[in-house]
């Protein structure tokens, strides 16, 4: 402790040293310093208060309404149950199908951009397209999804149409994260593999892709987060049917049925039916899911980076 005080390491530490703080400053500079410092703390405090309030309030209103029954039954007047199992199933289904479509496309596109593409102009075009896709708001995806999949392809209000739309929407995320981790694979590995006589595809399959699995997984997790949180596309392309679909009976039938996911269910509860208690319970479920997804992204990123 003593030594650190005697021999500060950096200019910042000197400046932060209590003894010289504010010494010999003119009045104006003192006010500037203190005023801005106060503002910075105030705004940070505001953000934190907001955060604590939001999370606290949702849990306060939602937790009392959350029960095992709520999570494992469907809404039924006959049985008098009020549950969101169909919404959970629909969410899982949409997440699964969207990833099955978007993942190969996204990883493939990233591989093309980093490993194959030699035409500079083509690369810029593809990257511009990716950036454009990531800037388009979900309500426009909902419009296009409705036109292209529900109408032109005749899928109607269905989970399959919604998944296809979401695949378009999540493509940029997967491309970007995969591309970033492809760039971290050392060039020497590629040259080594090619020098040993490997073909390009063999090299990508055995060296490059395994080396960039962290980016691919992170991209998946981020996409899952976006899909779980999405509502406009799911509402206007996926429909808002709250009844149970038989998951195992027929995937095909499931795909063509309309269904509400968790966010849509929340919207229907809160806005259309003014049932705030179940709505807040769904919000708690969504909040916990978001937290777990963020945690997973962080853990996966860190663990695979260490390797």
């Amino acid at each position, binding site marked *: 402790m003593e030594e650190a005080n005697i021999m500060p390491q950096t200019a910042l530490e000197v400046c932060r040293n209590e003894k010289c703080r504010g010494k010999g400053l003119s009045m104006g500079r003192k006010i500037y310093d203190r005023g801005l410092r106060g503002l910075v703390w105030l705004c*940070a405090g505001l953000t934190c208060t*907001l955060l604590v309030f939001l999370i606290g309030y949702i849990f306060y209103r939602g937790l009392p309404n959350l029960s095992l029954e709520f999570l494992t039954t469907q809404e039924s007047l006959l049985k008098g149950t009020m549950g969101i199992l169909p919404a959970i199933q629909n969410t899982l289904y949409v997440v699964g199908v969207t990833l099955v479509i978007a993942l190969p496309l996204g990883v*493939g596109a990233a591989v093309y951009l980093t490993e194959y593409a030699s035409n500079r102009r083509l690369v810029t075009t593809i990257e511009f*397209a990716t950036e454009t896709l990531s800037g388009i*708001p979900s309500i426009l995806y909902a419009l296009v999804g409705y036109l292209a999949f529900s109408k032109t392809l005749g899928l109607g209000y269905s989970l399959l149409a919604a998944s296809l739309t979401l695949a378009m929407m999540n493509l*940029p995320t997967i491309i970007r994260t995969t591309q970033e981790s492809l760039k971290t694979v050392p060039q020497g590995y590629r040259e080594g593999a090619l020098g040993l006589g490997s073909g*390009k595809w063999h090299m*990508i399959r055995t060296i490059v892709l395994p080396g960039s699995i962290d980016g691919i997984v992170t991209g998946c997790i981020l996409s899952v987060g976006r899909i779980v949180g999405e509502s406009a596309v799911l509402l206007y392309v996926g429909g808002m049917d709250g009844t149970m679909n038989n998951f195992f009976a027929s995937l095909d039938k499931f795909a063509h049925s309309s269904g509400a996911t968790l966010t849509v269910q929340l919207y229907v509860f809160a806005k259309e039916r003014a049932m705030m208690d179940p709505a807040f319970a769904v919000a708690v479920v969504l909040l916990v899911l978001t937290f777990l997804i963020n945690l997973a992204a962080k853990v996966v990123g860190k663990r695979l980076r260490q390797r």
Partner: protein
Amino acid sequence: MKRAQKINPLEAGMHGLFFLCGFVAVAFVLVITVYLVISGLPAIREIGPVNFLLGTTWDSKNKTNPQYGILPFILTSIYGTAGAIVVGVPIGFLTAVFLAKVAPPKVAAVIRPAVDLLAGIPSVVYGMVGMVVLLPAIRELFQLRAGDTLLAAILVLAVMILPSIISVSETALRSVPREYEEASLALGATEIETYFRVTVPAAKSGVAAAVVLGVGRAIGEAMAIMMVAGNAPNMPGLFKSVKFLTTAVASEMSYASDGTLHKMALFSIGLVLFIFIMMINVVLNAILKGEKE
């Protein structure tokens, strides 16, 4: 040499396949553009571009003489976004300064994941909390008949753009070379003076990118503000019930019947929104490119 020239069918096939994947993103953009333009133009042509863009009344329920003027929506979107930026950017930016520079590392390590959580919360959740907390508060505070106002939408949007503004500006602030700060401190500037007169100007393009990103997010948000803005097609006013470009589409999509001028007009609104977004994207790309150079 000879062997290298022989084309392996598998290799060529994979090359083609990867090229197709890469081209899919471009194809998607084309599909989106073509659909929006083709479905958006007929209504504009029928109503007339001037009447459509500058008409001040939107009355789609009127059976005999429906009016499709979207100026109220355009202005509401602009005012709402500007309001969200005015409220959200200073708070977000100063929080970013706090996280990147002022905060003790342990405090920052707690707040940062919490901000990430804020970014991941679905927009309908924001809308719902706004409905339950903000609307009664605004109604009481300003003695209004209903709390569903532009003000409520602005506040919800401001909260929703906070996380992206915080994280983008924080990254920008952190990437400023340490030597700049050291030099400033060594010349006798205080810590705060250094951050605001050296670090922030050096990171200004990153902060600008954060603002533009916030604009993009705010102008594109639909579900959350649909729950708090009241959805009446009024000209914008802070205490009036209003409709944004996004919520005009979102709130009428489900009940406009196919093939009618009403539905086609909704697609035209989508086209207008798309043009707005494309302009914002171009600005954002220009800023980011400038930063890289």
